[in-house]
């Protein structure tokens, strides 16, 4: 298992390098002087008043060198030391900009994904066990319907119903102004997290249902039934555990989609996280900031995939990972 994890991490490295290359290309394609987004703003102010120093700085940073590989390697070296450059709009370092927003986004996403798994998988199992029943019909069509509704529409409808009409939940923001207790934060989390959870649960219901139906059709389930085991035991011990295996992969595949959902959800609910930052960066055409966000989310997605693969190995003893391919 240990060897497998290490190999799996090593395989991710070229992908990570690929992400940095995409990032670098985008940075270079961006209009504007690259110097503006790579120098500490205080130094920059100083430099701008001395044209000679400006040229020297340009030379020092290697902007007069060939883009590939020299400039790329310089940039990569900076990134490896945590220097992602500076935001052109806020003049703060990218690490600082992103660092302050990561916790909010993590909170939103982890809550939403946990909720999605807790809602989606059981519903998928129920619809499969009760295939062709009215319940199956209702739940399955709601899943298709919700999977076809854009997150922002769902979010706006939720705000309309729960915040404006019923006045039971806030329309958005992290906290009520002047309040900072955890209960207030939780109160503000309910609506965005639920909306994001519903959007992610919908495909999960459909995949779990398909996977479960596949397993229920198999011979060992028939065997288990013919032994006279109770329906409960057949479903939970024999069918569900096996149906779960492909679902683990699906959960991992959902993560990039969930990030996209989070970007929009944050925008709708004025949730001050990375998603809102990304939209702000795109509107202001702040290249370093956008690349920082892409890098961080790319790494997060890769880590999530590795975790999913390990989960897969734990759930399915047939997968012999330590045997070299």
């Amino acid at each position, binding site marked *: 298992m240990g060897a497998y994890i290490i190999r799996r991490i090593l395989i991710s490295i*070229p*992908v990570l390098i*690929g*992400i940095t290359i*995409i990032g670098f290309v*985008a940075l270079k*394609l*961006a*209009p504007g002087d690259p110097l503006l987004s790579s120098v500490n703003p205080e130094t920059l102010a100083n430099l701008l008043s001395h044209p000679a120093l400006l040229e020297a700085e340009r030379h020092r940073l290697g902007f007069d060198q060939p883009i590939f590989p020299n400039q790329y390697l310089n940039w990569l070296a900076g990134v490896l030391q945590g220097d992602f450059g500076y935001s052109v709009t806020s003049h703060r370092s990218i690490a600082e900009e992103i660092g302050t927003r990561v916790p909010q986004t993590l909170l939103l996403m982890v809550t939403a994904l946990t909720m999605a798994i807790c809602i989606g998988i059981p519903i998928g199992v129920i619809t499969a066990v009760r295939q062709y029943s009215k319940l199956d019909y209702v739940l399955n069509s709601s899943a*298709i*319907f919700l*999977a*076809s*509704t*854009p*997150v*922002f*529409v769902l979010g*706006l*409808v939720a*705000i*309309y119903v729960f915040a*404006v009409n019923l006045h039971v939940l806030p*329309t958005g923001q992290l906290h009520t102004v002047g309040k900072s207790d955890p209960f207030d934060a939780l109160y503000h989390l309910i609506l965005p997290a639920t909306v994001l959870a519903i959007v992610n649960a919908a495909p999960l219901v459909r995949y779990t*249902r*398909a996977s479960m*139906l*596949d397993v229920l*059709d198999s011979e060992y389930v028939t065997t288990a039934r013919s032994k006279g085991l109770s329906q409960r035991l057949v479903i939970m011990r024999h069918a569900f555990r096996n149906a779960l295996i492909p679902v683990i992969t699906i959960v991992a595949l959902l993560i*990039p*989609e969930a*990030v*996209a959902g989070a*970007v*929009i959800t944050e*925008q*709708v609910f004025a949730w001050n996280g990375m998603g809102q930052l*990304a*939209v702000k*960066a*795109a*509107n202001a*055409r702040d*290249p370093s900031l*956008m*690349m920082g*966000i*892409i890098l961080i*989310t*790319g790494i997060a*997605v*890769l880590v999530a*995939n590795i975790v999913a693969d390990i989960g897969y190995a734990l759930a399915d003893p047939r997968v012999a990972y330590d045997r070299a391919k």
Partner: protein
Amino acid sequence: MTARNDPDALHSMAEAELAQLPVALGTQVLGEHVSPRRAAARRFLRYRLAIVGVIMLTIIILMAIFAPLLTPWPPNWLDLAAGARQPPSPEHLLGTDVSARDIWSRVLYGARTSMLVGFGAVTLYLVIGTLMGLAAGFYGRFIDQGIMRFTDTIMAIPPLLLIIVFVSLVGPSIVSVIVVIGLLGWPLTARLVRGQLLVLRESEFITASRVVGVPDRTILFRHMLPNILGPLTVVATFGVATAVLLEASLSFLGLGVRPPEASWGNLITEATSPVVLTQLPWQWVPAAIMITSTVLAVNFIGDGLRDAIDPRAAKDR
């Protein structure tokens, strides 16, 4: 899905006069020979929701094409005489927006935007993805390795984020939305084509073609490509749904199709103002209904197509 239980594969094998397979999936009705394609068409028609989807999508496409005939108002015309933010009336079926433009007309022209992006972007990435997948699956070795590592990279980054970055770099417009989704959307198609090709490559009729000396290009495009058209159609269909949703999301965020050009997404942006959200629902609800209906219709069609092409999947319904 293996070559053996893919009806289209079977069909081509018959053409190649190599089909001596014991199971003929096309012949579902005893004693009557039905071609695999026709059998697939029958399965598709049996799925009622797929028919509903086709009808819904046809209506939306017709709305997009005949937009100018369905409304007297040009989408960007400011009807200052009627005034801004008017409720629905016989003149303005869905009222007017902040700038006194007719909303019904903007919804119709929004359908044009959605359809253009949906079909345009998907066509673009199907072509790129198919070529890449064919190259990877057919030539193997380092070409395969290179292309697959590249798709890994692209797929590790959340699509919306990547698209936001590139659209904002080239400047938001309908063309850049189409091009960016098209250029970044191909990895999934490439992987599918490659996967199918790896199975096909080992099949007997391909070996047979090789033995008789059929050139690579003919094998690829005459014998292999037709066999993967089925799964490709399914991917393309779901791709249209995704592209329509992406465009709407980008435009909603103000990073896609921007006003004055009409898009369902940017019509809904108005609803971020509490007054519009609560007091003027006719400004955003129609666009929301249109997006959901379009995506729903395309998903129904995709489900029907998938079941029609892969009868094994049909039992999941």
